[in-house]
C-alpha cells in the first residue's frame, strides 16, 4: 500500500541538516543575543514609541530569528514526515499513533505551563511550543521504531 503525504526517505537526512544548525542558531539567538549582521534591516525611519511595529510595517529588525525559525520548522517537518527505509502499513499505524501521543503530551504540558508558569517566562514557553509537538513526535516515533527492532532481535536470539 502506498502512503501518500510523505516525502521520500532521503529528505530525513536533509531535514536533520536543516534542523540541527537552525536549532543551535535559534538557541544562541534566544540566550546570547546572537544575530547575523547581514540580516539587519532598517527603513531609515526611527521607531515610533507609541505606535509600535505592525505587520509589513517594520522599521528596524534583524531577520535571524525569522529565517532560522522557519528553517527549523521546515527541517523538523522533513524529519517527521519522510518515509522510513522500509515503509509499510504498520509503519504508518505507528506513525499516526505517535502523532496522537505527541499532540496529547504537548497539550498536557501546555496546560501545566498555563497553571504553573506566569509572566515573561510563559511567553518563552509559547515560543518553544511552536516546535515541541514535532520534537515530541519525532522522539516518540523513533523510540517506537527502535523498540520494534530490538524486540525482533531479542526474539531471534531465543
Amino acid at each position, binding site marked *: 500500500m502506498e502512503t501518500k503525504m510523505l516525502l521520500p526517505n532521503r529528505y530525513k537526512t536533509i531535514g536533520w541538516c536543516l534542523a540541527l544548525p537552525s536549532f543551535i542558531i535559534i538557541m544562541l539567538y534566544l540566550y546570547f543575543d546572537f544575530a547575523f549582521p547581514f540580516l539587519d534591516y532598517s527603513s531609515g525611519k526611527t521607531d515610533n514609541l507609541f505606535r509600535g511595529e505592525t505587520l509589513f510595517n517594520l522599521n528596524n529588525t534583524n531577520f535571524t530569528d525569522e529565517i532560522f525559525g522557519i528553517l527549523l520548522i521546515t527541517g523538523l517537518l522533513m524529519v517527521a514526515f519522510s518515509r522510513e527505509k522500509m515503509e509499510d502499513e504498520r509503519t504508518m499505524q505507528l506513525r499516526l499513533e505517535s502523532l496522537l501521543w505527541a499532540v496529547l503530551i504537548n497539550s498536557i504540558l501546555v496546560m501545566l505551563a498555563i497553571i504553573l508558569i506566569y509572566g515573561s517566562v510563559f511567553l518563552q514557553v509559547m515560543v518553544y511550543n511552536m516546535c515541541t509537538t514535532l520534537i515530541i513526535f519525532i522522539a516518540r516515533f523513533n523510540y517506537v521504531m527502535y523498540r520494534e527492532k530490538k*524486540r*525482533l532481535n531479542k526474539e531471534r536470539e531465543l
Partner: protein
Amino acid sequence: MKNTLRVQRAILNITQAELAEKVSVSRQTINAIESNKYVPSTVLALKIAAVCHKKVEEIFILEEGD
C-alpha cells in the same frame, strides 16, 4: 483476532523475513502479526493468504469480543 500464521509459515518452511519479502512489508510487521500485536489490513491479509495458498479465514480467525 487470532491467527495461524506461524503454523502456515512452518508448513511452507519459510522464515519471517522471506514471507515479509513476498508480501513486501517489513520483518517487524510479520513478527507483530504473529505475536498478535498488529491486525493487518485486508490487502495484506489477502496477500499473505495468497502466498500460503489458503483462504483468509483459515489464517485469520475472529475471536469472541471482536
